[in-house]
């Protein structure tokens, strides 16, 4: 742990030399990345690091955090710490799956729509804009309610919610690039459509991708947790942070805080990780013009 900290400090100071005023953003990005890495490793190494089986009763009901169960046990006697660790698998799986799917749907659509323009483009944009303006959670609720519980339906709901985001982003890029001179020049020389897309438009879009992806991931984590919280997520007994938070809520009045606090903390942490990473990267790649 100590060497990890000093290595990162070394990296940060190196990066600082690049752009001293941007030091704080590098901090953000780095911390964000470390959090994401931590949770990804948690998900990958779950079977090895979790002390107990997350769905089996291993202790007394609602034991407060102690040496045997660092985060205590829940209302069925399961170890919360193990549930947290295994919970990361579900979260990462759903988040990454839905990100990938909405990306794969939204980007080509946006690309085509922006490139082709005309009536179909206007119609599609109108639909996408309306969806985008609609609160993601509510849309996800509508879908999840109909699709029923389960990992796949959650992933589908989230996918649909985020397609407009990618659509709009790509389409925006395509439109602005279409106006730019170098594309006009390429056309004048007779470049084929395919070349235009791949050689000119893509490279300009790529830098903003990690930012959009991580900010979206942050939102997705929150939305997925919200769906679980409302009972629209994965059925018990699979460990799921949002669901566990909901289950633990009832015990609050009796001062039993650990069944809900820890899962909730993890949700916040993961979201923070993605947000810090994305926001930091955003500032670094498109810094303010005025230097003070």
């Amino acid at each position, binding site marked *: 742990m100590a060497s990890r900290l000093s290595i990162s400090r070394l990296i940060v100071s190196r990066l600082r030399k690049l752009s001293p005023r941007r030091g704080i953003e590098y901090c953000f990005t780095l911390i964000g990345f470390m959090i994401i890495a931590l949770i990804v490793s948690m998900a990958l190494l779950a079977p090895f690091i979790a002390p107990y089986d997350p769905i089996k009763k291993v202790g007394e009901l609602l034991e407060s955090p102690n040496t045997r169960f660092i985060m205590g046990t829940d209302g069925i006697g399961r170890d919360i710490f193990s549930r947290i660790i295994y919970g990361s698998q579900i979260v990462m799986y759903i988040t990454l799956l839905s990100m990938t799917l909405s990306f794969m749907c939204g980007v080509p659509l946006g690309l085509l729509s922006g490139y082709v323009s005309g009536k179909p483009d206007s119609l599609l944009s109108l639909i996408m804009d*309306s*969806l985008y*303006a609609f609160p993601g*959670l509510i849309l996800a609720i509508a879908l999840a309610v109909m699709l029923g519980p389960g990992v796949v339906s959650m992933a589908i709901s989230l996918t649909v919610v985020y397609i407009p985001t990618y659509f709009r982003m790509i389409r925006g890029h395509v439109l602005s690039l279409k106006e730019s001179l170098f594309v006009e020049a390429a056309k004048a020389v007779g470049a084929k459509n395919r070349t235009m897309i791949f050689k000119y438009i893509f490279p300009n879009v790529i830098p903003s991708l990690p930012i959009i992806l991580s900010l979206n991931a942050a939102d997705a984590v929150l939305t997925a947790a919200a769906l679980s919280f409302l009972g629209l997520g994965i059925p018990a007994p699979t460990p799921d942070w949002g669901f566990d938070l909901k289950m633990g*809520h009832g015990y609050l009045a009796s001062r039993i805080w650990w069944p*809900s606090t820890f899962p909730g903390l993890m949700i*916040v942490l993961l*979201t923070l990780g993605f947000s810090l990473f994305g926001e930091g990267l955003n500032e670094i790649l498109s810094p303010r013009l005025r230097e003070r």
Partner: protein
Amino acid sequence: MVSLRVYIARRILLSIPMIFILLGVVFLVMRVAGDPVSAILGGHAPREQIERIKEQLGLNKPLIFQFFDYLWQLLHGDLGRSLIWGQRPVLDEILEHFPATLELSICSFIISIFIGIFTGVYSARRYNKPVDHSIRLYGIVTYALFIPWIGLILQLIFAVYLGWLPTSLRIDTLMEPQTITGLYVLDSILTLNTPSLVSSVRHLILPSITLGIYLSGIFTRLTRTHMLEVLEGDFIRAARARGLPERTVIYKHALKNAFIPILTMMGLQFAMLLAGAILTETTFSWPGMGTFLAERILYRDFTTVQGTIVFFAFLIVIVSLVIDIIYVYIDPRIRY
């Protein structure tokens, strides 16, 4: 320069396709994504029973006709009927819960604006100093604070451990004031009912702080960004050159200009508000539309859920419309 009336008319016209699209999407989702009937009956019912109910609900006709039926219903203010509570009209039930959500929303919104604008301005004035970075961090962190969790923590600290405030609900039992507006605080004031006032305010504090903090993050960032832009403008320097005190320059000149782009984002803010309200209400058992929706979801009362979502869609479109119209009135560059 278009005349004001034309602009407003155009804007209203634009809302119509938007509403259609949203309705279409909701409809598509609700009818196509799953089979509501088998879901209600538990999937093991005999074929003919399913068919009979489908006939009853009109689910047998081709999708397009179903859509038109639905639109016709909506036009008559019929958002459907509950599948569970003995065919009560959904609209009635929603409207019962509406004032509670309204009260929570107004409170939270005011809190978020206060926090957001002051921190945003403060942050912009101290650009790149540690305070600025902290406030930017605040903006990022507040967004990441999962509402049920932050609500939980506040409940834990202030209600459970310190015992200063109640954990949930809207008011102590049997203390409801006479209903005039449906907003307990207002009604208590209007009917001079002090115990009721105290109770309703006490119950309002934690939920509105929770939702308010969540919303303030975006306000902080927006205000900061736009203030920084505006402060770079020449007219700010010119105002200083005229000897105007700094406070006037910041609030009267800069903030007013920064506020306009902030206003345009308010439509999106409202969407966030609704989503946030759902989570806040369920966490605090606040009897508003959010709790109502969550409840009906658990009971698989599809028509009600659908009706509520449609109601939300209407709300969002109307609010966006109102904001755009306000925007036109505020910015003189559009009017003249």
